[in-house]
């Protein structure tokens, strides 16, 4: 959250209270639902039914394999294929003759499907149970809150819904899309597309993951943490062996799931497309506007703002309240701070000491820096190239984040009261910014401006490893989208005689490895960040597939973090900047 370089030239004296980018906002966007409000939204007393988890079985009926009855323009209907356990798939597939198909299919299996399994079946899982004295992890809310479908929507009294039948499926459909008892029937109807997402949310508890704000909230509730939902990795859990949560870049991480969805530019024509666009983007949106829209870039921008907001909210809540009983943390819980603030190499004259930090921050556990890394690019985007507006936005943000940094670092672990006072306005401002970015068009012109902003390397700019990853991932995604655009995707049509069971997966794979992956790979080549450049320096590649378990990948990341130096990173950024100029 700290970027002293850019802050340093912004005098704290000027606190613009009522001007600045964040303030001239649409008063209330129709999409602007604050997280706390949404999460706490409860069925009205009486009348409305409460949503319950139903499990995957129903989902799998339709989403595992398209049939002749169902059309696949809107969704591939192969989504459920990826939410299966590798072991089971292997067992099934070994009986068959095509090992190649198995291999390709395995590489598509989503790690989320293993979320539950790792609790009990890995060495690390067993070690953590022993260290944390967990007798039965099927009852351990602090684990299951993130590692299964559980605990998505706490009831008003703070208790949680009972364990769904399919909790052993790990993080599957309902973990992100919401408990399905109310929406499983209506959503299968094409007419459903015409409805406002807010209606779907309020009436049927279907989470609007098409909206980057809500998508980000869904991902970050586990990947950053959320006290209200009972999802926090405490320092004790880390000490017992839980792998550190890396800084998350929404679009990059989503691409590594792999994505089982297509964004609006990737989808072809489907029934009620016009109505769908209007419902999801706003009444003033049409095909012409969509044709210029960059949904992935927007996702990066919204994602980073929400990441910062959720990180601040987590800090605030951990400092202020106890949270659900199962979390059992005591302030100061070290997990609320940046891991690398303490867990770093000790060298004299290290780059850490070269950073221009405020004297009060010296030797203090610092707040996480990575959610801060892209905020200035977002401000630049909103200012639309108007330097004065950008400067105002920067000053506003700098004053808010300064307050929080002082509150959290003036003395070791800060003061809970000060953290609350500083968090509140910051969270509000970030929510407003996220709504603004989300409701506005994001075009090529915007994207290029953002890229240039991201490549800026000031002398006093010393991004840490995780911040550098954020910047590099953002550049990669945005450049790929600008560079490749959205050529129409036409899957190979095989004559029915040659069709096999794997063809549906192949169609997906073709799409994924075709447009998306090629675009990113080409972008990496064009920018010169492929191996052994930035990709190796920052361990940028996130490998898809259940064979790449997190704790195994961790070593690769830690090695990169250990060798990391901001000067090397800045050198690469300068090279990219030169290429962009051309």
């Amino acid at each position, binding site marked *: 959250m700290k970027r002293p370089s850019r802050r340093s030239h912004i005098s704290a004296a000027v606190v613009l209270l009522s001007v600045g980018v964040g303030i001239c906002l649409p008063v209330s966007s129709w999409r602007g639902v604050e997280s706390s409000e949404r999460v706490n939204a409860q069925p009205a007393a009486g009348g409305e039914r409460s949503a319950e988890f139903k499990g995957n079985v129903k989902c799998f009926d339709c989403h595992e394999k398209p049939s002749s009855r169902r059309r696949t323009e809107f969704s591939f209907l192969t989504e459920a294929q990826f939410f299966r356990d590798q072991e089971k798939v292997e067992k099934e597939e070994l009986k068959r003759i095509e090992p190649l198909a198995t291999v390709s299919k395995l590489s598509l299996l989503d790690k989320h499907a293993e979320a539950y399994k790792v609790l009990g079946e890995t060495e690390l899982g067993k070690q953590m149970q022993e260290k944390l004295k967990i007798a039965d992890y099927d009852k351990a809310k602090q684990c299951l809150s993130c590692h299964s479908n559980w605990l998505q929507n706490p009831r008003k009294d703070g208790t949680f819904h009972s364990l769904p039948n399919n909790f052993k499926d790990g993080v599957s459909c309902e973990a992100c899309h919401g408990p399905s008892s109310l929406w499983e029937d209506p959503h299968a109807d094409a007419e459903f597309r015409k409805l406002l997402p807010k209606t779907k949310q309020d009436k049927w508890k279907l989470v609007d993951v098409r909206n980057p704000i809500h998508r980000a909230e869904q991902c970050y509730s586990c990947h950053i943490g959320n006290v209200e939902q009972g999802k926090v990795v405490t320092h004790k859990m880390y000490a017992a*062996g839980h792998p550190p949560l890396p800084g998350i870049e929404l679009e990059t991480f989503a691409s590594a799931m792999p994505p089982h969805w297509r964004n609006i530019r990737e989808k072809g024509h489907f029934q009620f497309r016009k109505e769908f666009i209007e419902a999801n983007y706003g009444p003033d949106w049409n095909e012409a506007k969509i044709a210029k829209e960059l949904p992935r870039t927007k996702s990066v921008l919204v994602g980073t703002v929400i990441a910062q907001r959720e990180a601040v909210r987590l800090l605030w809540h951990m400092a202020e309240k106890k949270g659900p009983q199962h979390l059992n943390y005591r302030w100061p819980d070290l997990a609320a701070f940046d891991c690398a603030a303490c*867990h770093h*190499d000790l060298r004299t004259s290290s780059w850490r000491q070269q950073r221009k930090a405020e004297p009060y921050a010296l030797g203090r556990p610092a707040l996480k820096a990575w959610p801060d890394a892209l905020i200035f690019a977002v401000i630049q985007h909103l200012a639309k190239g108007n330097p004065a507006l950008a400067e105002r936005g920067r000053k506003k943000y700098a004053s808010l984040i300064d307050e929080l940094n002082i509150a959290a670092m003036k003395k070791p672990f800060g003061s809970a009261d000060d953290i609350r006072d500083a968090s509140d306005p910051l969270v509000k401002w970030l929510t407003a910014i996220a709504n603004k970015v989300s409701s506005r068009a994001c075009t090529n012109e915007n994207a290029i401006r953002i890229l240039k902003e991201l490549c800026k390397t000031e002398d006093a700019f010393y991004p840490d490893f995780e911040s550098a990853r954020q910047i590099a991932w953002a550049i990669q995604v945005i450049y790929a989208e600008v560079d490749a655009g959205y050529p129409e995707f036409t899957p190979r049509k095989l004559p029915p005689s040659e069709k096999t069971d794997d063809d549906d997966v192949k169609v997906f794979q073709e799409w994924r490895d075709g447009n998306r992956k090629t675009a990113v790979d080409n972008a990496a080549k064009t920018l010169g960040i492929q191996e052994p450049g930035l990709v190796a320096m920052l361990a940028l590649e996130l490998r898809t597939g259940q064979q790449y378990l997190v*704790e195994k990948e*961790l070593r690769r990341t830690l090695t990169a973090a*250990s060798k990391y130096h901001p000067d090397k990173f800045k050198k690469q950024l300068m090279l990219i900047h030169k290429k962009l100029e051309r």
Partner: protein
Amino acid sequence: MHHSCDLPLSDTIDVEGTKMGHLQRPTVIFAGIAALAWIPFARSQQKSLPKAPATTPVESIAPPIAEADRDLLFDHRLGYVKYLGHLSCAATACHGRTTDLTFNSFADGIRNNEHSIWSDGPHARSLDTLSTDDSKRMLRRLGATDTKGAIDRTGAHYRNCLACHAVHTNGLSVLTGVDPDDTPARPQPRYESVNCEACHGPADAWRAKHFLVDWPKFGDDTRVLRHWQAHKMIRTKNLLVRARLCASCHVGGPDREVNHDLIAAGHPRLNFELAWYHAKYRTQGFSAHWNEVRERRRVPHFEARLWIAGQLASTEASLQLLRARLARVATKRNMSPWPEFAEYNCSACHHGLASPSWRQQRHALGAIPWGTWYHTFGMLQTPGSEQSAQNPLEHFGVALSSLRDVMQKSVQPDPAKTLPLVDEALTRLRAWSESEDVVRWLSVDSSSRIPANRQASKLPSWLLTATARFTRTASNKDVQLASQIDNWDAVAQAFLYASAMDLSQRDEKAKTGLTTNADGNSVREYLQRLSRRLDSRQSNGGRLGLLGIDFHGAVDKYPVSADLLRVLDHLQPREQRQP
């Protein structure tokens, strides 16, 4: 700071002075407190010693721990003391002889070259260190700058630097803790590096007298002590006085500290151990200005005494420092950081995150171990409960353990609850330091002649019992204790202990004409292997960070190795050794 374990095992006593016969020009830049360079082990040279003439038995020369000396060091009531500066000692006829910087000519007395040797040594540069680019950067990071951005050399930060790095020659000593600005005379400040007077006391009263024939020499009776105290001369020959003197800077004290802010700004961590720091004079290319050969020859088990004096003084200084920190937080006079991370084991936080890791096998999850460097020895003296404590040392161990529990229970210990525990620990430490055992063993004037008789040449049983716990702990026989020796700090302390004891035993054997047997030589091998292992730069081609912490996780682990166990076992009396 580099944990370079250039240890006291490097040579035994060398009476002829052949090893010290040449003073190497120091190649080491003294950076703050730490000598930063690794100097390989000097080759061992074994010489047999002539038997020292029999004089008074060791018991009779032992005065009580001199209150007078303690007052001179730590009491703030001294009032105005005039410091004269190092040049007042530097006359060629006095201590400034430069023609022969060896032991040879004056092996048994004053050598006249002390000032010259000092001026080539590390302490003479302590003030210059504050003007290096590194120091300037540190001060900037600390915010010790004025409105124009220049280093502010009058503020609290810089005064904290001066407290150790300088002596305020024209006014009151920084050593006494009184703000020079408060003195009525207000002389122009003139600072010198840690000079003669920094350790020997302000020379105004004794400069013109201390060389006279009737100046009472080193001594045992109250009259001598009073005389020295009256003249404000510090009895550096008394091992405990010396230990406390060194610890006042190398560990810190109420008016001076290296806290975590300072370390984050770039100051090396302080890792003081008296016997090791003495050994640095033998291994790092600069010479001691006092006759350390004579010390080792005259005082039986000199190294062992030095080690225990160092443990006592370091523990005492670090507890007093903790007390001052807590008191500052309690009064809220300034923004003293609390919790103070410098109190804890560096590698508790600064470690790699690779999993699986040996750290995860320990008991307390996510807690920060406290007191692993300065209290390793004290912590080992825990008998389990207050009831089973049998002597003052064990009573102290119990108090120290209670303090540790509070310091570790939360990452933010409550100052109000912690302070009384520190006081209790200090009280018991004092009781131990004034107990007969310690007085007899430590209040040794290293210039006195002590007979090499049977009695004096044996390590006292209380010391053997106390230190045997290293072995017991290291061999995991006591699970509760074992967790205290599973980190670099504790293993390094155990190693330094082993080295001091080994050298001590060697010296005694040499004095009685015994040659070291093959068993002893293998101990040296183990020690050298351990030393290489504990030195981070040795174990990974000099590439690693200061604590040997690397995110690759390769050397993040300092297990109690078989080598250490063998050494510790060897130091036990024969009948207690492992079969």
